[in-house]
């Protein structure tokens, strides 16, 4: 299985992600695209900041992706870092597989792994001037 992990300020285009994931053996590609929404904790969100422990992040993801070695063809993970505005892309996770179940399952599981295990800190800044580490 081939994979690409991108930790960057600028998100790739969904077309670029799809082009990376596509193989001649692929019958399905599933892509999750998270977005910065305009409210959280009953407050209006102005913007977010992410700080990532890149070294640990790439290491733990590489280890986790071994779980999908024989089930998917390719995987793509984008984790943003730095400042993001409402409407910006956050996490992008994609997988390609022979049929739909494998890539759907892989993306869902990688997403849960990212939410619970990936080493990232997120700070929300609100329109009322307050901020909060999540």
């Amino acid at each position, binding site marked *: 299985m081939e994979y690409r992990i991108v930790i960057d300020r600028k998100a790739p285009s969904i077309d670029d992600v799809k082009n990376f994931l596509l193989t001649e053996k692929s019958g399905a590609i599933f892509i999750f695209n998270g977005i910065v929404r305009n409210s959280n904790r009953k407050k209006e969100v102005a913007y977010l900041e992410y*700080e990532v*422990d890149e070294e*640990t992040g790439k*290491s*733990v993801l590489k*280890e986790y992706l071994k779980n999908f070695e024989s089930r998917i063809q390719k995987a793509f993970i984008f984790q943003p870092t730095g400042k993001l505005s409402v409407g910006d892309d956050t996490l992008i996770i994609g997988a390609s597989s022979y049929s739909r179940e494998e890539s759907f399952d892989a993306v869902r599981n990688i997403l849960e792994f990212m939410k619970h*295990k990936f*080493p990232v800190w997120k700070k929300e800044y609100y329109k009322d001037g307050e901020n909060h580490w999540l």
Partner: protein
Amino acid sequence: MLIRVKFFGELKEKTGKRSVELTLEPLKIRREDLIRILEKEFDIPKEKIFNVAVNNSLSEDFIEDGDTVSIHPVYRGG
């Protein structure tokens, strides 16, 4: 033993440091023991649940002499 603890995000902000070196009496400690030590040493939020990465891995049970550790929140919503 001597370990290095890297801080990111809220912990970097609260401690004012990117990393610290800690000299500890035991030869090895569990991840949760390190959190208790850091809670006493620094003003880190007690209500949060943390993952502790040891030498860039989440699968090590113990922290030993010479290890580098980083600490991150378990869940960030969304």
